[in-house]
């Protein structure tokens, strides 16, 4: 029983981090219905940003997530204005190929600038706490991951309030729902799309800054997370912030519990099986609307 409980707790801790990785995609893909295959590369840039600020200026990733987030917001807006706004008018395939091109551009630029070496952060607040844990009902909660999870949860709640409870958020949702109608009430769709791209890039980069405490930093690191992020957004329901959170927790727990009882090869198979299962029962995802 303790084994199962421990697996659930481990899964929940990872789930919160997955949620933060996926939520940027929820905004760009789920809410604005634009495909972004370079999402994982934004995460990678966030990780490299945190690593670079740490080794160059000694900034802890928990501090550098602010400049990293701001820089990536600007990059997200720039990418929308210079690339995605143009391809948005075309076929969805144009968007797919544009963002795949962006993926290779960003990944290979990182290889050129940083080389493909694996980089590690070791002297940060969270890495110094590694190994410390809280015990509750015989279950161990790793303190660094717990802090990471709480940070992710806090950011998530802030985003939820921004999207669901502010005029700006409502304008964003209105643009996603009906661009022409939104224009009639004075909303500038291009502005909203640019902000959505900025927010999406900033959020996943912030996730990257937090993850740099736990994972090796290298140019290809984004891929493993991108695949999970797509499954999470689809599972949670396109455009649903809370759905994304719940789906990420489900994915974390499914991965963790599956591996305790079955060969680890089933880990991701069960994640996608749960997506198929929920897709059969609720094609719009857990919290999605048609």
């Amino acid at each position: 029983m303790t084994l199962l409980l421990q697996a659930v707790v481990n899964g929940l801790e990872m789930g919160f981090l997955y949620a933060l990785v996926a939520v940027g995609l929820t905004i760009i893909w789920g809410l604005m219905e634009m495909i972004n295959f370079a999402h994982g590369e934004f995460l990678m840039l966030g990780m490299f940003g945190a690593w670079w600020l740490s080794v160059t200026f000694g900034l802890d990733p928990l501090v550098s997530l602010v400049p990293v987030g701001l820089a990536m917001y600007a990059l997200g807006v720039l990418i929308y204005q210079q690339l995605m706004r143009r391809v948005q008018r075309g076929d969805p395939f144009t968007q797919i190929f544009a963002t795949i091109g962006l993926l290779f551009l960003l990944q290979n630029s990182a290889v050129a600038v940083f080389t493909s070496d694996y980089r590690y952060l070791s002297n940060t607040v969270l890495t110094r706490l590694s190994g410390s844990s809280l015990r509750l009902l015989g279950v161990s909660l790793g303190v660094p991951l717990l802090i990471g999870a709480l940070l992710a949860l806090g950011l998530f709640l802030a985003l939820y309030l921004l999207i669901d409870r502010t005029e700006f958020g409502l304008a964003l949702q209105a643009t996603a729902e009906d661009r022409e109608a939104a224009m009639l009430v004075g909303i500038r769709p291009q502005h909203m799309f640019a902000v959505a791209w900025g927010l999406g890039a900033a959020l996943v980069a912030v996730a990257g800054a937090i993850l740099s405490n736990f994972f090796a930093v290298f140019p290809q690191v984004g891929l493993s997370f991108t695949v999970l992020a797509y499954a999470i957004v689809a599972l949670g329901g396109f455009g649903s912030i809370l759905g994304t959170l719940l789906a990420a927790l489900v994915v974390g727990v499914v991965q963790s519990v599956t591996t305790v009882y079955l060969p680890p090869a089933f880990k991701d198979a069960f994640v996608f099986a749960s997506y198929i299962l929920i897709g059969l029962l609720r094609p719009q995802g857990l919290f999605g609307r048609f």
Partner: protein
Amino acid sequence: MRRVPVVLSAVACLLFAAVLASRIAPAADVQEVLIGELLPLTGNFASLGQQYLWAGQTVEDIVNNDYPDLAVPLGPGKGFPGLGGATMKLVVRDDQSRGDLARTLAEQLITVNKVHWLNGEGTSGNTSIIQPVVEGFGIPMSCHPCASPTLTEKGLQWFWRTGPNDKTMVASVFAFLREWRERGGPSDLKTIALFTCDNLFCQDNRKIAAELAPKSGFEVVLDLTTKTGATTLASEVQRLQAAKPDVLFLVQYPPETSIFQGDAKRAGWMPKVIATSNGAYSDQTWLEAQKKTNGGAGWLGRDPTAIDLVHDRPSWKKVNEIYKKYSRGQNMGELAMREITGMLWMADTINRAKSVEPAALAKAAGETNMGPEQLIIDYKGVRFDKTHQNELASGVVTQVGWDGEKHTIWPWDLARRANFKVLYPSPGWQERDSKPKPAN
């Protein structure tokens, strides 16, 4: 109209003659020996590919420039003396760590770029994909750091490997564990868990370890294969912890190894011995990072050379200086040493062949008999068996000490020279945290 067949026949004869002439061109006509370097410079295995590229550039530099005091093949003098001073030119292609692309690029290197030798791909999986292509065209090919035994067990005519394979190297680890027990080491090491990733390299290691473990007196209590690119290994660590193995045989790439370390630390779990084979243990950046955390202290693994003793060799130091010109100041790791050793053998073979004709190159390769004094690595020499595997390539076992460096602990004669006391049991996480860190 009757002239057309005559003209066509004449053109065909001319083309045939040109092709024939190009294949049997005298050695003096070769200005450049073209070496196809097919490497994973981007994608999942890019960190390996870049080390191999630096190694290739180092060998190109050694061959083309005069290093009078460098006691390695083609160190003194410029170019290939056997080919009238022809220079070596690398034709580098990046396959993005993808087997399908590697196959296409191998074809292009042979048919379009007309390389005389193909070196690559650096990973066993992708090398096995391009082997049939190269075999079909009939030009020499080599992959020296590739360790999968299957690469030389297919009866291929055109493939050579100077580096040791996983059978040799994993066997070294188990020989150490077995003999250690007999030489007064711990007698309570009875169980082992295998913890490996899911690609050809890891699975080859797993199979060999699974075969050797019982023969070395170990009961395999858990055999876990994980997905390459995992984002968490917490549940796997839970299972390992529950299985309570005395020895953990871990074969994982650096990102997964660091995830494992984080999850094992969180769970407070440490087996008595962590034994590894290549993967993170061969990655210089992983090793350097461990110096900041003591994370690698006590880890033991196989290496193709006694890296702590090899530094004393003058040729190693000189080659390392050349390597650093290309590697942004990074020292040669053991992967780079394997690649440089292999490519210097290739250059020596081309020089001895006095030709770039495939048959002549194959003959010269088969006649190789290099002594250890020409090498920058601790092989007993280079001499090929009938499968084109270097039968003199050997393995050693090293352990990371509290100084963050690798120290040779097997074979025993080299271990005596290294004079290092084996760290046992593997230090717990608290001890790692409390001890001074070499990099701080």
